[in-house]
């Protein structure tokens, strides 16, 4: 399924929990998805030959309180295994929450992943918020 096709299907879908999606494919080939259960932190979807990657940029290093970076990194490492379907990482200066799926995964799985990732984002940020400026 192409990202364009995925955007079309996501925009027409509503989950059992009432979550709906606003998906737009950018010129750079990044599918930006806003989930109604977390409109503040969009999820960016990209694809490789074997994977679909769902990425939520969380915050930049500059947003971490001075001298709190190590503590923040440790907290993120500690909570990461407890987060369902998502992992935490850093891309350049940006901390990200991401999940990866096989390229041939079903639409239902993608939707579930997105819904969970949107919730995970809030959970993670609530935990580490005291360490941010």
């Amino acid at each position, binding site marked *: 399924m192409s990202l364009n096709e995925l955007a079309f299907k996501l925009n027409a879908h509503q989950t059992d929990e009432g979550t709906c999606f606003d998906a737009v494919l*950018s010129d*750079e*080939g*990044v599918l*930006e998805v806003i989930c109604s*259960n*977390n*409109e*503040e*932190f*969009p999820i*960016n*979807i*990209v*694809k*490789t*030959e*074997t*994977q679909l*990657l769902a*990425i939520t*940029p*969380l*915050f*930049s290093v*500059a*947003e971490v309180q001075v001298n709190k970076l190590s503590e923040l990194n440790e907290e993120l490492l500690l909570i990461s295994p407890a987060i369902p379907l998502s992992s935490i*990482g850093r*891309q*350049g*200066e*940006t901390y*990200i929450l*991401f999940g*990866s799926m096989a390229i041939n995964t079903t639409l239902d799985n993608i939707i579930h992943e997105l819904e969970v990732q949107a919730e995970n984002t*809030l959970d993670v*940020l*609530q935990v580490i*918020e005291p360490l*941010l*400026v």
Partner: protein
Amino acid sequence: MSILKNILTAIRGGASEVGEAVIDANALRILGQEIRDAEDAIGKAKQSLTNLKASEIKLKRELNTIHKDISDYESKAMQALEANNDTLAGEVADRIAVLEADAAEKNAEHQNLSVQVNKINSMIRQREKTIQKNKRELEKIKTVEQLQKATSTMSTNFAATNASEHRVSKALERVKNKQTHWEDRMEAGEWMESTEQNDELDTKLKAAGIGGATTSGGSSVLERLKQKKAG
């Protein structure tokens, strides 16, 4: 060595912008081309292997036929000997000798071919493993490239909003407010539904003459007044 180490080195070196190569772009193209070339070569090798295997099967079949002929002629030679026809038995024995020589030659050829088939087959499998490994390595690089692409949009937004402090806190607050608002609306919806259900029940009860309404119309008031006057 795993390419992951190269990726880490490149990232540490600051290769974090989109378009900036995680590893040398030429090396990436070469790796991709090598994988494609190797796949083509394997395709051709498999075709050759199929032909070799077909020759091997054909030789085996010919060998079986010769052995069957030898066995047949041996039986006939025995019959000639039993009939005391040594001359004919001798001729049959000569034919058997020719067939045995042919069988020995074909057998050697068949064994050589079998060894060759197994060797090529094993080489193809080994090569396929290497290709799969290279593909996974390439996938790692492409994953990092896609991650960079997906993160760059938002990083630009961060840069624009970094001027305002508590960006995350404010965003969380907005989400919380929206969720509270949504929950309020859900509660209101449930209340409305419940009220409508109660109204419906009251209507049904009234229709059934149960728990009648206490409201009195003008006629009932006049009736009450008449009774009062009479009393």
